[in-house]
């Protein structure tokens, strides 16, 4: 199996002089700084010769003290080896520009767009450098730069400019006042680009085509985002996705908090996956600190994360069924009832049902309460029976199969190209699971199966989720068997956490896929940069190509089977 050192030596021999500094730490992670003009060649070499076929994300860091921007490209492989390559490119703060990787990796598109709109780093060769998360008024102020002073509140009523359009409706727009432009607190130069509406209207051809809005308020959306479909009758010709309606700027908020204060914020990334988000963030900071949680704490984390996975999969499946069925479709409510038992188990440890803030750097907050083992085993027994029932129900229901089979098919190659992860990827016959690929906690000692399906359609995605519930039950039972007494916090941890300057990347298997946290420290008590690489971001990017050529009713069946969560996209 290829190790990170093999890749590094191969790189150094293939590109002498292009690699400025490089290290392998911890094992399986290759950190390298690449000369800006060679980054595309290096990535192409890695993709073609070392099967780095998974573009995991990119993070932009503002090194204001050095007068530099850094863009870290994260590459990994879909099962060929376990090395993660984190390739850093530096660029000057004046007219920053980096070469785009969209030619190599299709899914680099959204990551680069985000960095562009937030930091103002231009990506040469990017096909559609339009804002993604920011509203049009904010483009050009580059809010994630360190010297960003905040921006006047555009959304106050006295700034609203009313305009009555020819059809008789009132439009509102917002803009800086003359005084602000004179004082120089707002940029006068803004990038020019076609707006979202203009881009989609360009695609309308013919009298019978129209744009149908699904969102920002619509039954199909799990949170506010805009899914516009160009339809001809019942056929979808093209789909457009606009996100950012509830963008919270979590990454920027975390830069202004101490490390510890960041934990509750990670809860809010996604309401279904608070524990894994905690885990990903704490894991990254633990790597920076160079500590590891004691064994008992690791077991507790694993138990809770798997419990959380069960409840998330139950709710995700149930919600999806209400989408293709109706709002009164019964199994959804049955799944909510089953989920209660799991939530009670989690609640007995963490004291909370949704936002746990439970994981700590080097351990966990509480120990397991008395009677937890029996309670959990009882709940698991029930869940197993119920899940078996649901599976049988869906396998035997002919309408269900009619609606699901062959809908939204992702071939393995296509799934890898689009960069999806988690159940949708595994449903496309790719056994890619962070618990196996990038083992964290004690998952390497656990006996479990990575569930895959061959079909890659909506039904396979739901089946993968239901089967994963069984695997999670099995993992929890093993953990409860093996867990022994001991401390739950690492010793010798200072009250004020100030990691050494450096960077760390930590990936976990979220309920929805690959969740990674990239944390940069400069030795102070606040992180320089926290980047959350979420799985739903990748799904959303992959959604429009999947929807082309389907029926309107299939839009629901495909989008729902992805088990999306908007709040994580609009971090």
């Amino acid at each position, binding site marked *: 199996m290829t190790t990170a050192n093999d890749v590094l030596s191969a790189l150094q021999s293939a590109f002498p002089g292009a690699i400025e500094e490089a290290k392998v730490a911890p094992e399986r992670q290759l950190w390298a700084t690449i000369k800006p003009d060679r980054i595309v060649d290096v990535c192409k070499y890695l993709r073609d010769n070392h099967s780095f076929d998974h573009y995991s994300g990119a993070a932009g860091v503002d090194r204001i003290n050095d007068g530099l921007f850094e863009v870290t490209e994260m590459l990994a492989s879909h099962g060929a080896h376990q090395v993660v390559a984190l390739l850093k490119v530096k660029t000057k703060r004046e007219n920053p520009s980096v070469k785009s990787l969209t030619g190599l990796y299709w899914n680099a598109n959204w990551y680069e767009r985000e960095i562009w709109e937030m930091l103002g780093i231009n990506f040469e060769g990017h096909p559609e450098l339009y804002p993604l998360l920011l509203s049009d008024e904010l483009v050009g102020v580059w809010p994630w730069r360190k010297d960003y002073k905040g921006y006047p509140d555009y959304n106050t009523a006295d700034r609203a400019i009313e305009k009555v359009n020819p059809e008789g409706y009132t439009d509102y727009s917002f803009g800086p006042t003359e005084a602000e432009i004179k004082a120089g607190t707002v940029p006068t130069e803004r990038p020019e680009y076609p707006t979202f509406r203009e881009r989609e209207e360009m695609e309308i051809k013919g009298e019978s085509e129209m744009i149908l809005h699904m969102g920002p308020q619509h*039954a199909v959306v799990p949170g506010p985002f805009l899914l516009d479909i160009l339809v001809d009758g019942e056929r979808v010709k093209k789909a457009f996705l606009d996100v950012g309606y509830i963008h919270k700027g979590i990454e920027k908020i975390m830069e202004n908090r101490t490390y510890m204060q960041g934990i509750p914020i990670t809860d809010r990334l996604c309401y279904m996956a608070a524990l894994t988000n905690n885990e990903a963030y704490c894991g990254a900071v633990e790597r920076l600190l160079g500590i590891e949680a004691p064994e008992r704490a690791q077991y507790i984390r694993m138990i809770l994360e798997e419990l959380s996975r069960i409840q998330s999969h139950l709710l995700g499946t149930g919600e999806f069924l209400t989408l*293709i069925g*109706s709002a*009164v*479709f019964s199994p959804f409510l049955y799944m909510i009832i089953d989920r209660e038992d799991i939530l009670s188990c989690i609640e007995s440890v963490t004291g909370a049902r949704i936002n746990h803030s439970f994981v700590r750097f080097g351990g966990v907050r509480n120990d397991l309460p008395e009677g937890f083992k029996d309670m959990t085993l009882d709940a698991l027994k029930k869940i197993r029976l119920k899940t078996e029932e649901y599976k049988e129900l869906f396998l035997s229901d002919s309408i269900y199969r009619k609606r699901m089979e062959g809908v939204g098919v992702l071939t393995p190659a296509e799934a890898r190209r689009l960069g999806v992860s988690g159940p949708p990827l595994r449903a496309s016959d790719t056994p890619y699971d962070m618990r196996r690929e990038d083992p964290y906690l004690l998952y390497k000692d656990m006996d479990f199966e990575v569930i895959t399906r061959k079909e890659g359609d909506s039904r396979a995605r739901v089946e993968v989720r239901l089967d994963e519930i069984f695997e999670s039950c099995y993992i929890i039972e093993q953990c409860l068997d093996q867990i022994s007494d001991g401390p739950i916090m690492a010793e010798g941890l200072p009250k004020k956490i100030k990691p050494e300057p450096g960077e760390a990347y930590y990936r976990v298997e979220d309920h929805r896929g690959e969740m990674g946290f990239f944390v940069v420290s400069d030795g102070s008590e606040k992180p320089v940069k926290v980047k959350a690489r979420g799985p739903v971001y990748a799904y959303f990017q992959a959604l429009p190509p999947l929807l082309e050529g389907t029926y309107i*009713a299939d839009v629901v069946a495909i989008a729902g089977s992805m088990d999306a969560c908007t709040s994580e996209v609009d971090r």
Partner: protein
Amino acid sequence: MVLSAITEFAAQEPKLYALILGLVGAAIIASVINVAAMAVVWLERKVMGDLQARYGPNRVGGRWGILQLGADAIKLFTKEDIIPRGADKPVYVWAPIVASATTMLVAGAMPFGAVIINGREIPLVVANMDISAFYVEAALSIMAISAFMAGWSSNNKYSMLGAFRGIARMIAYEVPMGICVISVAVMAHSLNLVEIVQAQDVWFAVAQPLGFVVFAIALITDLGRMPFDQTEAEEEIIAGYNTEYSGIRFGLLYFQEYNMMLLGSILLVNLYLGGWNGPVIPVISFLSPMVWFFMKLLIVLVALIWVRVSLLRFRIDQVTDLGWKVLLPLSMVNLVWAVAVGLYFA
């Protein structure tokens, strides 16, 4: 004395008497049907609640929530009636009225059970016409037109898609449904619903099991209930044809659906489940046909609700596929069967 005066009047002015009788009957039917539809809404919410392990309405009107529907109705009738600026106003305004008128048309010819007076069975029906089965079938399909009026005139994309779906579905399902009615008529030797009921010594559901199944599926489609509610699939097109409606007009469209559900169930009971036929119950022999009728009706209604909460929605192309490629041939087979069996036993 009053009775004799009426008989005298009837003998003198038979046409006027028939007109007055018809108007009185229509008034009774109109009020009874609407109140009964409210009861159906309540029943649906309560049964749905039970099937989904929750309570359903349980606040307004005691622990059974009996007055909930009254409260809902008052709310709907006092809300602002919004007409969108871009709507085709006359059509938009008239669509709900056409919809409720349709239900009254159907209700007029529908027998609602019978009572036994002096050993004679008197069917409860306002207009006992010779072709009532055919007439009811024809009037039922006007419903799709009112939905189309509502959808088209709203000037809304979702409404328009809902209206298109409604028409496509109507065409696909009226044909097998009509053929099923013909099969029943062939066996009963009549198109009169009362005579069809009286002809059922053996329920037609037993005599024509295939026809029963086809008719039941087509009926659910016609009523636009799950799994065939594509016209108002809220997960896809918000609320379909009634997206833009509010206030009393929405209320009319909404109640019309439940009126239709009630009338459709009655039609099913009359055509296939022997209507009010059943053994005479000793103590209340006067009402015994009504008891049987309502028992059957309740079972059909609960079955419809059960189907709604336990099945997923078809896609619109799958619905039309099912209609044209499966139900139409099956209904033809059933017609042949009905003719053959009818000739054999005739």
